[in-house]
């Protein structure tokens, strides 16, 4: 499991991991396990357009708005990295 950054809301991050994996299973119609270290594009086949749908679903489940303007796709490639970003750069609607 990737180590969350200092200062991250651990509970929110855990909820983000849960939301991301649930939505990835649904969007990709995938039955197998999805772990935090998996690369979403390379390992799971997530396209950039489906990636946006994932973000929208995660926003709705968590009730936050993700700051996509500062979201670098190169640094949010794994489930764990994306969860850390969401926990650190999401604000309530």
């Amino acid at each position, binding site marked *: 499991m990737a180590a969350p950054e200092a200062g991250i809301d651990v509970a929110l991050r855990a909820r983000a991991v849960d939301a991301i994996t649930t939505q990835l299973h649904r969007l990709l119609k995938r039955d197998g396990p999805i772990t935090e270290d998996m690369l979403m594009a390379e390992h799971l086949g997530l396209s950039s*357009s489906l990636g946006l*749908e994932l973000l*929208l679903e995660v926003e709705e489940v968590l009730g936050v708005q993700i700051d996509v303007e500062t979201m670098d796709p190169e640094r949010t490639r794994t489930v764990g990295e994306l969860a850390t970003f969401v926990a650190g750069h999401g604000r309530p609607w």
Partner: protein
Amino acid sequence: MTALDAVSVYTPETSVPIEDLSEPLGLTDMQVKLFRRFHGLDEVRLDRNRSLHDLLRCALHGLTALGGNENRVRYVIHGRAMPVVVPYPENPLHDVCREFGLGHASTFTVTQQSCASGLLAVELAGRLLAEDSRPDALAVVLTGEKAFTRDAQLLPGTSIFSEGASACLVSTTGQRDRLLSYVCHQRGEFDIEIGETTERFQREYRPALASVMRQAVAEAGLALDDIRLILPHNVNVVTWQRLCLLLDYPLERVVLSNVATGGHVFCADAFANYRTALDGGLLREGDHYLVAAVGSGNGATFSAMLFQH
């Protein structure tokens, strides 16, 4: 040196909220939400009562600098995304040329680079003028298209097209908006219409566009920090948010204000954003600005032009 002497843009006044297009375009509620939340689209401009001929005429009508200079115009080039736009033998381009006293000019259309064909038309205009025997010769570059079918209205998961047109007077002697560099990478391997390379195209899109933009800046002997503004294509906002992270360029200096209500107008985006920058006082004398365009279809084209205002 190629220069833009005057630019006119026409967009229909009729705005259509993207929700109203969900049924005709077959969009789900989620797809509409995505367009609003991440792509930054609120409404598009469509006018069922105006033909392509009308769009081109409106753009040319706004090109007031043309008046009195018609005889100097040697070339009229229509940069267009779609190869077939009217039934044979209609030819709205020839019709508007005759109406505006340009019937004597050599007139043709380029569509080979899809939505990047507008920049190609500017480049070709400059090349033709440079070889012309008359030093005061002018060219008119037109863009303009109707979103007349579902394929012409929607880039699935990416953008929704608006209708509009532009007219641009090009010279080799103008002192404003001089073209310093043009870089164009044609990538035939991306056959987006077939669909097999869509995912790879999505992955390589931003690096490929960033590459031509950096190269255009370098060829002009400048650095990105020297660029006052980027005039983007208006495909969507999220692409530019991510491209700015990749380029390390401030997003607030990318003219994105037309995306929400003006939309992606095929080859006209660059000219619409130029007018917005000019009318909004965003460009001062001597400023450098970078124009970027991407065309995709049967192959993809990534283009960047660097101008000095």
